[in-house]
């Protein structure tokens, strides 16, 4: 028989608490409020948006430099490339006079698609449940497809 006053030999839990009355109460802000109040979290939202957009832009720039930008050097240094003819027309004229333009348009289209997708994701992030108001119809259709 053990005495009820005996302390249990092990497993005595001591709750340690602190009266941290000076600490700020935890406030839940929405992402929108974080940004509007320029908090550190809000800064992170904006910086990540900017970084994503800049990455898309630099990606396009790199592709442009690696393709169109490399053409002069390619024609100058690869023997026989410029002389190569398709249906009697030197390939240089076909590439520089015709082929480059659809390529530029394609790059532009890819960029717009990606940039707008990034922006829709940003709007969903800071305004959950909101429709992407203020955007044109094509954008909204794509939003639904994304989901």
């Amino acid at each position, binding site marked *: 028989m053990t005495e009820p006053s005996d302390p249990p030999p092990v497993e005595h839990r001591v709750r340690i608490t602190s009266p941290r009355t000076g600490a700020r109460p935890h406030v839940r802000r929405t992402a929108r409020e974080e940004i509007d109040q320029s908090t550190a979290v809000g800064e992170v939202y904006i910086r990540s948006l900017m970084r994503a957009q800049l990455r898309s832009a630099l990606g396009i720039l790199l592709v442009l430099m690696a393709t169109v930008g490399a053409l002069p050097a390619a024609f100058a240094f690869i023997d026989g490339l410029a002389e190569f003819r398709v249906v009697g027309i030197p390939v240089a004229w076909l590439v520089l006079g015709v082929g480059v*333009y659809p390529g530029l348009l394609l790059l532009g289209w890819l960029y717009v698609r990606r940039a707008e997708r990034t922006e829709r994701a940003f*709007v969903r992030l800071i305004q959950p449940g909101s429709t992407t108001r203020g955007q044109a119809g094509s954008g909204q259709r794509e939003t639904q497809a994304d989901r």
Partner: protein
Amino acid sequence: MNATYGVVAVVLVSLATLTIGAFGLRISRTTSDFYVASRSVRPWLNSSAIGGEYLSAASFLGVAGLVLAFGANMLWFPIGWTAGYLLLLVFVAAPLRRSGAFTIPDFAEIRLQSNAVRRAATVLVVLVGWLYLLPQFQGAGLTIRTVTGAPTWVGTVLVATIVVINVVSGGMRSITFVQAFQYWLKLTALLVPAFFLIRAWIGDGAPGPGAPAEWTLPFHAPSGPDLYVVYSVMIATFLGTMGLPHVVVRFYTNPDGHAARRTTLIVLALLGVFYLLPTIYGALGRIYASDLIDAGRVDAVVLELPHRILGSSGDLLAALLTAGAFAAFLSTSSGLTMSVAGVIGQELARSGRLRRRMGSTALGERGGISSVTALRVAAAGCVLVPLALALTVQRLPVATSVTFAFALAASTFCPLLVLGIWWRGLTAPGAVAGLAAGGVGAGLAPLVRTAIDTTATWRMFVDYPAAWSVPLGFGVMIAVSLATRSRVPTRVSRTMVRLHTPEGAHLDRG
């Protein structure tokens, strides 16, 4: 060439321009109408207007002329002018629209909160505008002389006059209609005759150009200077487009950032279609009009080809081409004048307000001038300098001389816009130093080139400065900004929210 048809074509285009301009007048009332068409222009109308404004004499006449004279390597000019829109799209279009500024000086002030940057940008807008207007006015003179035999000053003065009337009466709204009309006119004017010319050429048995290999093949004999020139042209045109005042001002007329992107995408398509055509004229010119090279009139090849190939039955086609060329001068000159006048007009109106606030009314009790009046005064004023230059300065091939304007814009406004939009560290002193360095580098080139021995090897660094002046502009802007880190604008975080967040997000944009 039959002068009557040509004169009728010029008169018709001029009348149409003035009429459409007057149509815009009835609906332009407020300052916002005047400056940016109340920011309500739809993407298709706006893209046609951008295309109409952008395709200048250099595109309509100049590219074919250069291809006639120098062959395959000149195809880089139109490629650069198109790729410039791609880079504008990815780095600048949407943030620039979202900045809510009217002009580049406005953007500089919003982003950097500095009057010094604003003033530096204003001076550069005027300089770029003048450099670009000069070849337009000279090209108009050449066209009128080719068509009618009248002295060159007639066409120059005629274009300058119509432009001023147009801008003074209607502002941007009417200009938007005029520009959109002129894109489609220019495209038709090159497309229809090209069809007939190619048919006649095939009927001739499709003769080859009989040109030497260095014309047919790019870098037939690869040389350092050739490569330097091509890459320098590439840098100037790829990066200069975003800094041209008449291009940038168009982005403020979009309803929002998404529309700005869509507009730019359509522009890429419109330019790509258009630039297929000058190459055809240049190549046919080498076959049928190669004597123009020795005559030093390569810019006239587009206008002369119908007569050379089809004889007098080509007169109507020649008249159509004349109309297109004239549309090119009118639209580009109107757009440039509008944007330069917009910048000067705002400065005038600001200093007027400032003086009134200070109490010293230099302009009498009424004090200052309204911004619409300021715009009108500025429009008339800012045409006079390039007009005087056009009548006195020696003429260069038009595509070459607009490249100076591209190089200057690429060395100054491109760093300002790109760094201003994507880098928080940009400071006002950095921006001013970069604008000055890039501006002096690229701006001196057209001034000193006439004084330099044409045979000097280093001449190309003066003729094509962009390859070194653009890195200089960027480098100085970054270095001085880093050295003046304490001067980073306090509101930069709020400005970045405004530039980069889509309109659909309901945020405090400052």
